[in-house]
């Protein structure tokens, strides 16, 4: 599965606790320091894809002031997928950092 940034951030938002739709939007906003502000249509597209792949699952439903809140949780498969994606991103970042260091050292020489 091709993991986009909103998907990675939505999975990350569910690592510590189950969250409902707008809760995920707020947490993604915090995690990305305001850089990624999920639209509601985008959020549900992301949740559909993550649920379809078994990476998130419905945790519970609650009614808050007469409105429906569905909470989603990260599944074990979702945690594994996020871990793999994080390792891949970390490896890419490490390679980029190493090459930039070499470039800086070469420029200084």
């Amino acid at each position, binding site marked *: *599965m*091709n993991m*986009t940034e909103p998907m990675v951030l939505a999975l990350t938002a569910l690592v510590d606790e189950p969250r*409902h*739709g*707008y809760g995920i*939007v707020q947490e993604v906003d915090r995690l990305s320091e305001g850089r990624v502000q999920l*639209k*509601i*249509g*985008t*959020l*549900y*597209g992301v949740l*559909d*894809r993550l*649920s*379809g792949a078994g990476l998130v699952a419905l945790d519970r439903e609650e009614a*808050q002031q007469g*409105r*429906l*809140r*569905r909470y989603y949780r990260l599944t074990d498969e979702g945690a594994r997928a996020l871990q793999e994606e994080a390792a891949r991103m970390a490896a890419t970042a490490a390679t980029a950092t190493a090459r930039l260091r070499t470039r800086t050292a070469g420029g200084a020489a």
Partner: protein
Amino acid sequence: MNHHEGMGLLERRYRAILRLLPASYRAEREEEMVAAFMEMSGEVPDEVNPRPRWGEIASVLALSTRVRLGGAGATPGQVARGEAVRLVALLGMGTLAAFATAGLIRVAGYGAELSVAGAPESAERLSFIGDLAASVLSILAFVTIMRGHVRAAKAAALLGLVPTLGYAVLPLVLDGTDRFAPLQDVANLAFVLLPPLALLIGFHGGVAPRRRPWALALAPVAAGAALTGVTMLLIAADATEPLWYFLWLDHGAAVPVWAAASVVVLARRRSPSWALALSATGLVLLATRLPLLDTLPDALWPTVAVQCALLGTLAVATGGAGVRAISQGPTPAPVRP
């Protein structure tokens, strides 16, 4: 009791926007999505005439397109329709790529001697170059989508639309509608516009790209080259009679290939997506052939009539088969176009 009683203006407007989504999806998600919208907006009094933000409307529209075309959360019927749209893109772009190759080989053979190339720095020369660019881009779009490079394919298809639209729309703007032949012009426009548009909307983010073998990716290029080869051989052998030969060597060359594929799909009764895609592409082909019945000499009329009868009959049969298969419930194992 009125369902909307007690709802604020903003909530009613959000619910109206959510009607863009398929009913089956709305039944599952509407309340949850409205709750998210309202939590995001906070309580806003009707007096300030609150409206949903354009970005939110666009995101719902994009979600609706994805679900309707077989993305996550779609019903089996929507999945089949989405596959049909992607097949229209592949079949149509493949056809365009084959004719583009034939055209490029002809240009390479005749070079600037072609009268259609126009004088240097003239509008005709610009249009000629635009046409060449559109040809190259349509081949590129087909090869890249077949190799699973969705973004590159979309970029090539989108760029290819620019000269195509210029070519089709500019004369109408410059000359007015006097020269506008409704069926012929609309059919030709559909022939070149429908495949790239199907590519742009059909291969959305919810579809995993699939890498097909090079042999399939390059098949239209080989077909286009073979078509030009046969045409040039006939011309070189001075075998220009009977003229009806040539009605099977222009866009008519697609008719027997399309008809054979339709017969196979009808006989196997396996995939509603293939049936729907062949029906749609057949109707577009039919629309490009029908006007010829009016304009061609009597000697060529029977050939075009045969082509139209073939296209019409099989397009209706495949369309009927596709619609029946979808309405009869669970679809067979999806083909991955």
